[in-house]
């Protein structure tokens, strides 16, 4: 703010001095030139008071005329000079100042200052997001609907503009700036005590890398989450301790393989990392058998690597095998039926169209479907602009890097317990996952759940602590009951209980809670809001536990405890 003010003041020096000097000359003349009285006799010149009055209305082009009385000819001659002098000075100064206010460099400084002030005023933990392209805006929508604050940097002013128009509940500070410059990251609050982590999502690997380096050097304790497009960048990032590096192709390959191996696990993952309130997705059930993969670039390699691990037989079609290092594959682009037939598309169960050209991918998939309509089609979509084409074609899965990245980051950001949960459920089989899925589906009525965690310590769970202090056993069930009607259950499911180092998946409602426990829930937002009541309001909690209203004040509670003791004797 102050910088802007100084900049304006400094540049205003010349026009202001010009204005003062022209007023001085005009005033002096007015007070020296003799006037004339009502009878036409010479009269003394104007005094300063009237001279200032006349010059003021002349300079601003208001022009009341010859006030207070008729001027002498000499005064009229001087007034002519005054008009040209002061009007020009006035217009020049005003024009200059208006120009100054529209100066791009000044506006940039002003925007930067406003942004920095907004960031420093933040009073809740926030994530610093570098790059708000497709992935960034998806992630921000999800964070926003989970009530988590973000601060955004993007190099493209258009994208920042779109962000300002976007429908967000929270006020998200955004700035057009190059995230690869450390100073911009600092302005965006990297050194802010409430900064919860830095997320690099730009489409430039170098910029992401520099965000990771800056974060790890300036705030080593903060988590740095980065998107990477190539394996080299990913290993480079991991080498200096970047907490999570996500390569969209690898993640997609992993998930496709997971969907082949265990559709239930895959569906759980999709549901728990989606944007709350969106409709739930249907399970993906890729068939086991022979698959044809077209394109052996970075995407094709990731897919073949992961699908081979779950025992799928693969035939690779590649136009330039010598360039991509693909031995024993069928040469061709896959867009023509001949190559596809050579690859055995008629006996295959699935096809992956994974070249870096959207139109080719569509053409491959359409040709393949014509030969074999039962095929499971996986399409790689490179450009967002082609979404309508891909929707029209209705492939079994579209691989869209932005969506995948957003999901993956969200699962990491929501709560550390969620990624623990995903790790733990790997040990269980598909049938187990199906049971959980049907439970979630029953509770949630077809919309993506909120996922939240509770830590039983500190001010947020005051009531629980007091109850434990009083010696009342607190069972998990109390947190799943509805505070307005104890017999009804809240629309939420406890997923994980973490006590010290032991982790219990799907804890039973009868579990006794202890101080320091951490719980992971999924459910409706409404359920979460109601649950909070029981956590910090002692009366609500004791109603949930016992069905009775507890005595409110400390004195009454003490008396009741004494009464209990006496009854025991």
């Amino acid at each position: 703010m102050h910088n802007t003010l100084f900049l304006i003041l400094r540049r205003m020096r010349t026009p202001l001095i010009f204005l003062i000097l022209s007023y001085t000359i005009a005033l002096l003349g007015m007070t020296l030139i003799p006037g004339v009285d009502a009878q036409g006799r010479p009269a003394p010149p104007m005094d300063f008071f009237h001279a200032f009055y006349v010059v003021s209305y002349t300079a601003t082009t208001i022009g009341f005329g010859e006030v207070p009385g008729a001027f002498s000819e000499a005064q009229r001659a001087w007034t002519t000079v005054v008009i040209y002098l002061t009007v020009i000075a006035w217009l020049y100064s005003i024009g200059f100042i208006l120009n100054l206010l529209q100066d791009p460099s000044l506006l940039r400084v002003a925007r930067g200052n406003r942004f920095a002030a907004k960031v420093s005023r933040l009073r809740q933990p926030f994530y610093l997001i570098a790059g708000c392209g497709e992935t960034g805006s998806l992630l921000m929508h999800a964070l926003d609907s989970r009530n988590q604050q973000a601060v955004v940097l993007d190099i493209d002013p258009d994208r920042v503009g779109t962000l300002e128009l976007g429908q967000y509940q929270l006020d998200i500070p955004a700035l057009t700036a190059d995230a690869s410059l450390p100073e911009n990251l600092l302005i965006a609050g990297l050194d802010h005590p409430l900064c919860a982590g830095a997320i690099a999502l730009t489409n430039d690997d170098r910029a992401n890398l520099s965000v990771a380096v800056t974060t790890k050097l300036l705030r080593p304790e903060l988590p740095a989450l980065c998107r990477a497009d190539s394996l080299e960048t990913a290993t480079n990032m991991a080498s200096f301790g970047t907490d999570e590096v996500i390569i969209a192709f690898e993640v997609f390959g992993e998930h496709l393989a997971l969907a082949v191996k265990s559709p239930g696990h895959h569906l759980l993952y999709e549901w728990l990392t989606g944007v709350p309130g969106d409709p739930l997705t249907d399970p993906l059930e890729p068939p086991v058998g022979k698959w044809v993969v077209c394109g052996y670039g970075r995407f094709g390699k990731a897919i073949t690597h992961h699908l081979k691990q779950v025992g799928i037989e693969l035939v690779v079609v590649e136009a330039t095998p010598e360039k991509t290092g693909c031995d024993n594959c069928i040469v061709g682009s896959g867009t023509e039926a001949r190559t596809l037939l050579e690859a055995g598309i008629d006996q295959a169960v699935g096809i992956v169209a994974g070249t870096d050209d959207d139109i080719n991918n569509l053409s491959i998939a359409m040709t393949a479907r014509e030969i074999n309509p039962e095929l499971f089609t996986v399409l790689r979509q490179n450009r967002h602009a082609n979404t309508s084409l891909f929707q029209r074609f209705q492939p079994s899965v579209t691989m869209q890097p932005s969506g995948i990245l957003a999901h993956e980051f969200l699962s990491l950001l929501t709560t550390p317990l969620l990624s623990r949960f995903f790790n733990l459920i790997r040990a269980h089989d598909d049938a187990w996952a199906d049971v959980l899925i049907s439970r979630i589906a029953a509770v949630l009525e077809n919309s993506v759940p909120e996922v939240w965690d509770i830590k039983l310590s500190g001010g947020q769970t005051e009531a629980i602590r007091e109850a434990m202090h009083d010696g009342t056993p607190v069972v998990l069930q109390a947190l799943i009951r509805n505070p307005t009607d104890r017999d009804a259950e809240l629309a939420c499911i406890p997923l994980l209980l973490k006590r010290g180092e032991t982790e219990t998946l799907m804890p039973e409602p009868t579990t006794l809670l202890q101080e320091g426990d951490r719980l992971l829930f999924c459910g409706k937002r409404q359920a979460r809001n109601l649950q909070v009541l029981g956590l910090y309001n002692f009366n609500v909690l004791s109603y949930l536990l016992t069905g009775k209203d507890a005595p409110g004040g400390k004195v009454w509670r003490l008396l009741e405890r004494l009464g209990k003791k006496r009854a025991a004797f």
Partner: protein
Amino acid sequence: MNLEKVVFGFFIILAMTLNFGFVFGDINNPAHHHVYELFFAIVVNLIATVLKFGERTQIGAIHLASSLVADLGLLAAAWVWASAVYIEGTGLTPDVTASIVSLSVGALAANILSVVMLLVETVMFRR
């Protein structure tokens, strides 16, 4: 030698001397205090103020502040003059003259402070 510094010093010292010239004399005798002196004191003070715009140093900020104080004192004096002579019509009585001059003396104090700071800055400047 820096021309900017010359102009800067010139206006600050001129503002002080004009101000001093105006207040010099009996405090309640209108004949000792000429209107043109007040006029030029105001003009030069305003220019000195504008010249101090945009200084980012601490001493620059105090410079600007003292100049604004001087402007305020002198403009108040001019306003008292104008209202006594033209609005209320009491004319330049000894009472009115005394209050005009004392307001200007206040401005003079601020102007002297400006000059002192100019000197301090010059002494500290070792190049």
